[in-house]
């Protein structure tokens, strides 16, 4: 099942500039390029459980990486 999507409007002149920039690259559409850029800008961070985070923090402290 494909992911639910929403429609966002961007200025046409910006669209045209992006279209020109991605011509001949791996990106097959402006939409694909924008999604890629936004995914990098707002990444899904790895999820840490509280216990896991404390174990990692303790190890980093022990090794001198953090105070």
């Amino acid at each position, binding site marked *: 099942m494909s992911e639910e999507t929403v429609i966002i409007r961007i200025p046409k002149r910006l669209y045209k500039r992006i279209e020109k920039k*991605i011509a001949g*690259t*791996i*990106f097959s559409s402006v939409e694909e390029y924008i999604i*890629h850029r936004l*995914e*990098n800008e707002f*990444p*899904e*961070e*790895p999820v*840490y459980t509280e216990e*896991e*985070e404390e174990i*990692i*923090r303790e*190890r*980093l402290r022990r*090794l001198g*990486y*953090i105070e």
Partner: protein
Amino acid sequence: MPAPHGGRLIDRLVPESRRERIEEEAEELPRVSVSMEKRKDLENIAYGIYSPLEGPLTQEDYRSVLDRGRLANDVPWTIPIVIDVSEDEASSFREGDDIALVEGGEPFALLHVEEVYPLDRREYALKVFKTLDPAHPGVARTMGMKPLLVGGPIWLFRETPGKFPRYRLKPKETRLLFRERGWRTIAGFQTRNAPHLGHEYVQKTALAFVDGLFINPLIGRKKPGDFRDEVIIEAYEALLRHYYLRETAVLVTLEMEMRYAGPREAIFHAIVRKNYGCTHFIVGRDHAGVGKYYGPYEAQEAFDEYPDLGITPLFFRSFFYCRRCGGVTNERVCPHPAECRIEFSGTRIREMLMRGERPPKELMRPEVVDVILRHPNPFVE
């Protein structure tokens, strides 16, 4: 911080609570022996360092990586991560089976065999290394590979402690480390050398743009004449202690062999650092090169093909010490003639060190030289 490559940080490490049972199960399975280098690759898969890979490549991905430098789903990937097996080994299992991967007699991972397929060594060498010259260390290793490849997801249940456990971190740890330090932008620096002033200058120039520096030396098989792992680590310890702000740089090892695949390996190195959480990656002259197989800036040019890499390369040209300028500089900045220059020639520095001579302080920090000369043989034989 960038998302892990492919969107998700892979974790194929069997939880502690299930290890004993998996280890028992592994005892009953067909076995395939792998080298320590392959074991490290598989550990890197399990820790998410090679995200999005979940195991050695299956055929479609393998072909796609060779032909296009991308996985079949278009995600950039340039170095085939594979497990090679003999026909005899392959006769002990079928596609769909689980097998135990063994190194030094010790089972350490399960592999669910999705596919067994033939390896064309010449094609592999030509596409990855751009040469068939057996003098190229990567080609020589490829020609020694077994004739079949086996692909599928793995589960790692026994870890090696690592050569320098104190410096071995997983991406989940480095990402938390960067967060704890408040670094939003991080430049990854790949190295297989003890640092000279040229390296230091590159790193510190990058630090002018980013919050933190991630110095990430490769620990593992290298070619004769390269610095030994322990020399690299001790040299960096000395450099960081005497010449870096503690709050802006970290030293973390990466247990992985050098492939010497030039441009392809530069992209691969960038992907790996993206998985650690780096936003930027430093690419110098002749990155991951050997001999004269690649142009001096070919590795930098390779990034043009990957606008979707998700990590920003920082390109640096050659630096040198200029006696007239009185410091480290480069040809785009320094107006003085060549006779004023002292080049950072790795070969020249190595030759001096091999003779027990101290390279001048314009080339290498005295504290770093002390560390190197303390070792009876600082180079791989």
